[in-house]
Structures are given as structure tokens and as C-alpha cells.
């Protein structure tokens, strides 16, 4: 089976000799929900720009479901829908017109375009705003409008560049649900985001890009397994005046009723609970203090940075 996206030795040097991409290679399989992560300026948006032909590559190859973007650009573009980071629609046009026109650029007749526009505007909760000038929409509505526009030609690969930036939590969750549904129906999704819990929650595979290079390309599960220790917050029943000491488990007293405990992957949480019980401390609840992926992400990017400095 052809990969949904195959990138090989992709380079991009902007005017002024800034090398945004340094020979990256990447494959995304059909049906995947893939996260492309990296700090600001790492090369994520450049990569996405090249995939959807808004950025001209310096060298390398990109193919979408087996169609090379240079030699078979028409078919390759039919396969891709893109939701850019910044609003890029005519603010004076109505959402319904934006969608029908976009379908027209893909050669879809107006009758079919109108049906699809209604379908996606309804699904994304924008139907009641379909005939108002799009400049009057809220930020979250504008983001959803761009998702509807990207889906209007029913692409096999949907690329989203920070789709939930600036969107409130409730709306973000509903967008996650929508994207999960789209993915379950067979659309391959590539997502860039700064909300790492978003990637952890939605995506199966991940690539981390930094300084124009892929520094990690694996499944989310395998990536998380690289995490050696986790920090747990325990809420306890007793009022504690001093920090308990349990061998092998560094503990910090946060306040009278909560503790922070560092647990290594090789250690047992049962053993920790047993030791706390013996010390007369009863745990009421427990939670992760930090986002696991976030911790790992910073670790990887920091290692890459120190590697660069050593070079």
C-alpha cells in the first residue's frame, strides 16, 4: 500500500540562506493520526507548506498516496486538504460562498458543493452563520470554517497546522471529537500542535522536528516508554506536618494534605502505597503532575540543542 505521505531528503533554504529543512525524510501510513511536533521555527509549517505547494522546496521529493507533487501535482492536490495556521479566507465573503467556491476550484459542480457545504457547516456547528460575512465570526468559528473548507473536496489526507490555537477548552474538545470521527472514517490526519496533550490524546504516531531535522519518529506509545520517571501528586487523608521518608522514592511535601512523589519506571506504585500505609498515611487520590509527552518533548529538544552546541 502506498504511504499517505512520503517525504524524502526534503530541503528548504529561504532567501538569506536560512535553511529551514535539512534533508528530512518521513512516511505517514494511510489512516494514521500523525503528530508533527516541534518548537517555533523548527520547520513544521515549512513542511506543511511544501506538502500543499504553498512553499517551493529547494530539493527532495514529496508524494501523496503515490502521486509526486512535481510530476502529478493535480492528483496530489486532490488528495490533500489543508487547514493553515493563520486565517486565509476572504473576510468579506460568506462561509457558504467560501466553501462552494473552494469546491469549484477542485472541479466539484455547484449542486454537489452546496450539499457538502451544508453538511460540513452543520457538522461543525456553523450552519446558522453560513450567510453572514465571515469577518463577523469568532476566532473559534473561523478555525472551524477553515476545517470545513479543507474537507469540502473530501481529501484522503487532512493536514492541520495548529488547528486549536486560541480555541477554548470546550470547543477544542469538540474539535477533537470531530477529528477522531473523520479519522475513523478513513481520512489520514497530520496535525501540528503546541498542545502536547492534544497530540497524546489524538495521535498514534509522532515525528518531532527541531532545527529542520527529524529528531524522533515513532509511535506515541513507544515515545512515552522512553520516559524514565513520572511525578505523581498524592492527596492524603492525614494532616502532615513533616515530609515522610520512604526509601527509593523521593518525596516532597506540597502542603499538609498533598505530596509529590517521583516514581521510576522500574519501581512499583503498589510498593509505594504499601510503604505509605505502613507509615500511617492513607492516599485518597493520585494524579500525574506533568504532561508526560511534554516532559519528553522538552527533554528531546534540549538534547538536540546541546548536541548542536557540541557540534
Amino acid at each position: 500500500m502506498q504511504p499517505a505521505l512520503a517525504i524524502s531528503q526534503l530541503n528548504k533554504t529561504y532567501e538569506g540562506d536560512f535553511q529551514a529543512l535539512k534533508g528530512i525524510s518521513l512516511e505517514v501510513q494511510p489512516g494514521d493520526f500523525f503528530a508533527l511536533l516541534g518548537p517555533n521555527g523548527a520547520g513544521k509549517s515549512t513542511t506543511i507548506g511544501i506538502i500543499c505547494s504553498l512553499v517551493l522546496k529547494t530539493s527532495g521529493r514529496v508524494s501523496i498516496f503515490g502521486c509526486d507533487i512535481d510530476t502529478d501535482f493535480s492528483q496530489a492536490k486532490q488528495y490533500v486538504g489543508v487547514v493553515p495556521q493563520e486565517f486565509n479566507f476572504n473576510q468579506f465573503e460568506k462561509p457558504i460562498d467560501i466553501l462552494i467556491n473552494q469546491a469549484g476550484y477542485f472541479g466539484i459542480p455547484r449542486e454537489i458543493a452546496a450539499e457538502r457545504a451544508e453538511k460540513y457547516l452543520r457538522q461543525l456547528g456553523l450552519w446558522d452563520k453560513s450567510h453572514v460575512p465571515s469577518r463577523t465570526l469568532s476566532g473559534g468559528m473561523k478555525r472551524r470554517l477553515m476545517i470545513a473548507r479543507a474537507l469540502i473536496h473530501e481529501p484522503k489526507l487532512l493536514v492541520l497546522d495548529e488547528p486549536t490555537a486560541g480555541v477554548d477548552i470546550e470547543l477544542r474538545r469538540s474539535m477533537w471529537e470531530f477529528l477522531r470521527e473523520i479519522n475513523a472514517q478513513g481520512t489520514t490526519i497530520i496535525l501540528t500542535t503546541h498542545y502536547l496533550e492534544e497530540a497524546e490524546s489524538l495521535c498514534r504516531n509522532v515525528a518531532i522536528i527541531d532545527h529542520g531535522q527529524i529528531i524522533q519518529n515513532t509511535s506515541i506509545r513507544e515515545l512515552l516508554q522512553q520516559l524514565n520517571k513520572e511525578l505523581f501528586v498524592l492527596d492524603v487523608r492525614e494532616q502532615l506536618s513533616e515530609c515522610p521518608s520512604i526509601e527509593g522514592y523521593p518525596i516532597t511535601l506540597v502542603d499538609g494534605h498533598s505530596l509529590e512523589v517521583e516514581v521510576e519506571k522500574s519501581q512499583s506504585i503498589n510498593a509505594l502505597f504499601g510503604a505509605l500505609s505502613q507509615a500511617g498515611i492513607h492516599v485518597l487520590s493520585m494524579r500525574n503532575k506533568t504532561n508526560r509527552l511534554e516532559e519528553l518533548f522538552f527533554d528531546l529538544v534540549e538534547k538536540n540543542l546541546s548536541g548542536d552546541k557540541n557540534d
Partner: protein
Amino acid sequence: MTKREKWIAFETIVRREIQRFLRIWPQTLLPPVITIVLYFVIFGTLIGSRIGEMSGLPYIQFVAPGLIMMSVITNSYSNVVSSFFGSKFQRNIEELLVSPTPNWIILLGFVIGSMCRGLGVGLIVTVLSLYFADFSIHSLPITVGIVLMTSLMFSLAGLINAVFARNFDDISIIPTFVLTPLTYLGGVFYSIELLGDFWSKVSMINPVLYMVNAFRYGIAGISDIPVYWAFTMVGLFSVVLFFVALNLLEKGSRLRS
């Protein structure tokens, strides 16, 4: 894309362009009409009645074809330049760039959309001019042919201007400092017979002179220059501008980073 899909894409761009200038008609259709009516009132009726004849025609009949052509030129140019640059500025040109629509369809879509405004304003001005001047059509094919080709040429030129433009100043420089002088010195208000030998020859390098005279020939049957020259020049310019514009879109100049 199949031929039908390309046609749908083309139709979509043209329809969107027409909807755009109709939506903002107080900015796009009304001002040129008011300006041309003022020209007719001042140069045609008030001053024109004292001028008498020009090239054997009452002055108002002499200026009418030039004024119609002037409105076609300025509107064909300014429509595409503001629409295309507006799309670049708001970045909604990316909607087209990510689509499989070929560049030549994008080019034709914008150009035909712009011609619709140029010709539409030209038609309105023609109808209004009948109120001020009596004239019949000397040659319909020449009249229609030259007005279509002129509109095409200036739409193509406007698109090239929009591709190169980086800010709103850049889209007003050419109309202000090139297009307006060329139009005013292009035989709209006078016959080049009035100029001395030297300035007559200088005028011959102004392409607008050929268009205005060919159009005047189509309506009134008089011209300062051979009409076939006008068609040859406008045709050649249009072909060159078409390929320059297409090349810019193919390379993604100032559109793709």
C-alpha cells in the same frame, strides 16, 4: 483535472470576481460613471460647444469614444489589480494555490472577471453618452474587437502589477504615474494633428493612442492612425503579457515562498 472540472474551476473564479465587483458596486461601478458624466458635461457640453469641430466631428462626438475607451481601460486594469492583490493581502489566493486548478485557468478566470467589469462600465458609459451625443456605429466588428482586445490587454497588465505588488502603494503607482498620463495623452481629448510634427511622432509610441483611435474609427469612421496597426499592436502586447503573467504564476513569484 478533466476538461469539465477545469471549466467548473474557471466558471467559479469568474463568478466570484463578478460577485465581488457587484457586491461593492458603490466603489466599482458608480464612481467611473459619475466621473465620465462629469467629463461629458464639462468637456462635451460646456467647453465642447465653444471648441467646435475636431477632425471634422462635433467635439462631443469626438471625445465620446475616447471617454468610453478610457473607462474600459481604467476599470479593466483596476479591477484585477485590486482583486488579485486583495487576495494576496488577505492570503485567500492560497485557496487557489492549494487547489489543482492549473495556472492558466487562474489567469483566465481573473482576466475574464476583470474584463466583465471593464466592459460592463464601458457599456453603461456608452448608454449614458447617448444622452449627450448622437452617434451611430461605423463598424461593429472593429468597435467590439478593439474594445475586447483592449480590455484583455489591460486586465493582463493589471494582473502582472498585482503579482509584483508588495503593498497598497504598489497598486496605485502604475495607474497614477503610467496609466493616467498615457490615457490623457492618448488622443482621448484631441487629435494628434493638433500637435507639432515632433510631438505627433512621440505620441505614436503611446499604445493607448492606437486603441482610442481604432475605437473612434469603429464608431465615427475617423482615425489618426491605420486601424490594422492598432489591432496588431494590441494583439502582440496581449500575447506577450499573457505569457509573462502565466510565467509569473508558474514560478509562483511573490505568491509561494
